Structures are given as C-alpha cells and as structure tokens.
C-alpha cells in the first residue's frame, strides 16, 4: 500500500510518501489511521484530530468507514484550499 501525505500532514510526519503493508486487522480508513498513528510522534500528531483530515482511497474521496484492504494508493491531507 502506497501512502501519500500532503500539506501540514506531510510536514508533521516528515515524509511525503511511504510504502507499508498494514496487518489484516486494518480493514477501514479509521483502522489505518489508528495503526499509522502509532508509527511515530509525527504520525500521532498529524492524525490526532480526525475532523481536520481528509482521505482519498485510490484518488477518490473516502470516509472513515471506507475499506482499505485492496487499496493501492491512500492519501491523507487537510481539507483542500485551492482556487
């Protein structure tokens, strides 16, 4: 699974991407954030307030209950502010 981080999520984690293989117990976006949050202090800080996060699974906006087991690319970022 390819993970992408953008904006302040990227900065807090200190990485713009990482390739990881979560355990089989990680089935939803919420599970993934729980699991990722334990990887480092930066991950924990970035994912502390989930109301400030948005997630895309294979480039489509997802929510906390979206399945992730078969996903190839998951991006985690703040609400978008373009335009």
């Amino acid at each position, binding site marked *: 699974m390819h993970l992408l981080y953008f904006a302040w999520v990227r900065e807090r984690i200190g990485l713009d991407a990482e390739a990881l293989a979560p355990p089989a117990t990680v089935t939803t976006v919420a599970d993934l954030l729980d699991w990722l949050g334990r990887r480092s202090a930066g991950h924990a800080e970035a994912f502390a307030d989930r109301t400030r996060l948005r997630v*895309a699974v294979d480039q489509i906006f997802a929510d906390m209950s979206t399945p992730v087991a078969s996903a190839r690319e998951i991006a985690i970022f*703040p609400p978008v*502010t*373009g*335009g």
Partner: protein
Amino acid sequence: MIGLRVQAEDFNLAAEVDRLRAGRADIGAIVTFTGLVRDMADGAPLTAMTLEHYPGMVERQLAAICAEAEARWPLQGGTVIHRFGRLTPGDQIVLVATASAHRQAAFEAAMFIMDWLKTRAPFWKLEERGGDRHWVDARTSDDAAARRWRDPSAPGITRR
C-alpha cells in the same frame, strides 16, 4: 470539451478566450473567472503563496467537476487552468472560462466549477508573511457554496 491544465507556468486570459472563440460564431456568451494572489488576505502583508497539489487526483477531480458542468449546462466549450508552485501577490492562480449560447448557462457553469474546485480539487495553500508560514484553513463558506449546487432546485439541475 472543457480543456483542463494543471501547471506551474502562468496563463494568458486573452489567449484562452481567443482559443474558445476561434473559427466559430455560434457562441453568445463567454464568462471568465480569474483568481489572483492577494497581498493582504486576512491581515499581515503576504510575501508569497505556495500551491501544493496531488498529481493524478487533481486531474481526475477537475475532469469530474467539468463533466458534471457539461451535463448540467449546454456549454460550447470551456477551459480550466490551475497553477501550482510558489506565487507572489498579484499573480494569477486559476482560470475558469465557459462558453455558451446563453449568458445564464455560462455564468452558472463557471460559478459551479469554481465552487466545486474549491472544495473537491486537491490543492493546498501555504502562505508566507515575512518569516511566518502557515497553511490556509478551509472555509466553511466554500463548503456551503458548493453544497447549494446539490439542492434539487439548484441552477442546472432541471436541465440534465
């Protein structure tokens, strides 16, 4: 039919409008929206604004937004250009241009595209003010502006 570009380079409003008009006389209305970097957004003078984006998903989201606009309004053409990278006050950020036989369709489609782009296209703005830097927060007013197009009585809905 709406041309999409995500690029670091600047764009030229006149060239884009000329491209929409070229070789045809069936267009009655062209609406353009140009978004610019403001020097004083929310207080202290802005030094620069950096646009980060999610390559791949950005193009996909913009294509979906434009496809919906084309389904809702009878457009004869259009252009969406969004820049990324470091910009300074006065610089152009985004262009939306829509062409239609009728003014209401051109206006509504351009507004729709901008409202949805603001809430659905994965771009993030980093502001620099002197030595300070901070990521711009999303605005609830942008969410509200986008939501109104989902209303069953919203413009364009009955024209599907």
